[in-house]
């Protein structure tokens, strides 16, 4: 009976055959397989046997693990990064006489680009790698196979909570990163000014900074605050789970898979960031044509 099926796809008409080979080409690539894994994690939400209690507990655990435990590191990184950015932007732009684009620069650097990317890097380095080792050890101890033979879908039980937990955590962490970079960063700048007796010679008030930033924010920024973390979270967790599930049954492969997971997450996140930023480039082009 399997022979009959194989004959069927070999007897396809030329356009269908082309379509078939395109599909096979995509599915044999790593990226295509990762997208397939992402897709099956999404569709596993609608599978028949669903137990809301188990799933919600898994997702909450994963969110907690991804988000809350990384908070101290993220907070410190965000604060110091925000401090440095504010000081550099204000001093440099003040010298050059471009006082009116301070808000624009801070929005571009912190909220638009580096906030989501740094958050994604931190979470890829910490939670992506630990997700890979977690699932990878389960693969090696054949716990994943055991789950499957009990009828528990490993993609639903392991990958889906990681995916959703990662996206939710990255979304909130990104907001926390941006706010703490700007607000706490401002406080630290003030503290530096107080402690050093304004040796860096900055005149900075909260009123000035907040109005500049609020004026610079556009609607597209708010859309991207939502979209970027979700895309990055999906990329990081899918990649981590993909690398873990592909481990051959060999303990030495776990560290390899972990490093691959982290490095490839960095690569994919930056690539996705460039693709998402094309919208802004188009926006700039439109503005230039109106100015001219």
């Amino acid at each position, binding site marked *: *009976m399997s022979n009959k099926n194989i004959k069927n796809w070999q007897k396809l008409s030329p356009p269908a055959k082309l379509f078939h080979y395109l599909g096979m080409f995509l599915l044999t690539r790593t990226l295509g*397989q990762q997208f397939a894994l992402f897709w099956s994690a999404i569709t596993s939400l609608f599978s028949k046997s669903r137990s809301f209690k188990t799933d919600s507990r898994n997702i909450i655990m994963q969110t907690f693990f991804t988000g809350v435990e990384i908070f101290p590191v993220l907070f410190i990184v965000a604060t110091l990064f925000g401090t440095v950015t504010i000081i550099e932007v204000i001093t440099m732009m003040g010298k050059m006489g471009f006082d009116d684009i301070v808000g624009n620069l801070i929005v571009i650097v912190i909220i638009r680009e580096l906030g989501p990317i740094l958050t994604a890097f931190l979470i890829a380095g910490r939670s992506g790698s630990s997700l890979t080792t977690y699932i990878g050890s389960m693969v090696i101890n054949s716990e994943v*196979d*055991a789950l499957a033979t*009990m009828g528990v879908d490993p993609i639903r*039980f392991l990958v889906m909570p990681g995916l959703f937990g990662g996206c939710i955590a990255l979304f909130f962490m990104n907001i926390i990163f941006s706010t703490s970079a700007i607000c706490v960063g401002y406080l630290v700048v003030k503290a530096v000014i107080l402690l050093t007796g304004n040796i860096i010679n900055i005149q900075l008030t909260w009123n000035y900074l907040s109005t500049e930033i609020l004026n610079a924010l556009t609607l597209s920024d708010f859309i991207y605050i939502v979209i970027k973390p979700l895309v990055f979270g999906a990329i990081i967790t899918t990649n981590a789970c993909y690398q873990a599930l592909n481990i051959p049954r060999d303990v030495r492969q776990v560290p390899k898979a972990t490093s691959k997971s982290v490095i490839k997450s960095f690569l994919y996140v930056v690539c996705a960031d460039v693709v998402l930023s094309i919208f802004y480039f188009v926006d700039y082009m439109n503005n230039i044509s109106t100015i001219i």
Partner: protein
Amino acid sequence: MFDEALRMEDVHLAYNDLAGTIFSKPRALGFFRQVEDDPQKELITGANLVVNRGDTICIGGGSGQGKSALLRIIAGLVRPTKGNIYYFGEYIPPERLTALEVAKRQVGLVFQNGALISNMRVRDNIALPLRYHKRGSAAEIEEKIQMAMDLMRVRDEADLFPHQLSVGMQKRVAIARSWAMDPKLLLMDEPTAGLDNYNRRNLLPLIDNMRTLFKTTIVIVTHDLMMSKELDCDICFLHHKVLTDLKSFDYWKDSDTEISRELFRDLRSSG
């Protein structure tokens, strides 16, 4: 046909099908792959097996002959290169042959190392599939867990983690976990490997209980040939990539085949 639990027809398996899990790669890949016909690269060539409902059989053979791989094929964890498998008279086409689909037909597998989920207590390990599939209310699930733990005598260890248990205990918990799902066909991978004589003698009556009380069909992969005598069941061998016919223990012991000479040598000499 209707009292068959399992039927395998001409199952082939190549070595490179064993790598990785089937959950990472899209299913279509394995289905459309070109079939290799190189007998050198094959682990199992043309296995045929029929198991009737309620029967218990053993699969023996030397190490590295692919006994566990055969069991993984039956459980759907490895897709055979070629061949058909029928579960309870129902044919599953190769594009749908996954472990999840097989598990829906109430087929359970006990792994060689137990494969308990290591971050869950024994109680939660047994309850995991029941809760996931929502088999009854919380009280019913609790009752089922207690029954399973009583059957396998692991009740005192209910709140321990798997790494706190001995190997024999882990194996018993794994059997309890499979039993709790009411399997009609239970596959066991080396249930007695790594057990001392005392534990082994305790385990065999438990398996015997299961098949007499619950009419479970059991397929046991083992290197422990005395087990088939003690359970009074037929045994077949995976020898040089070929699965032999099912014969009784005494037949193998007295026959003059190569398998008998190799594997039953010390049993014969001890009488």
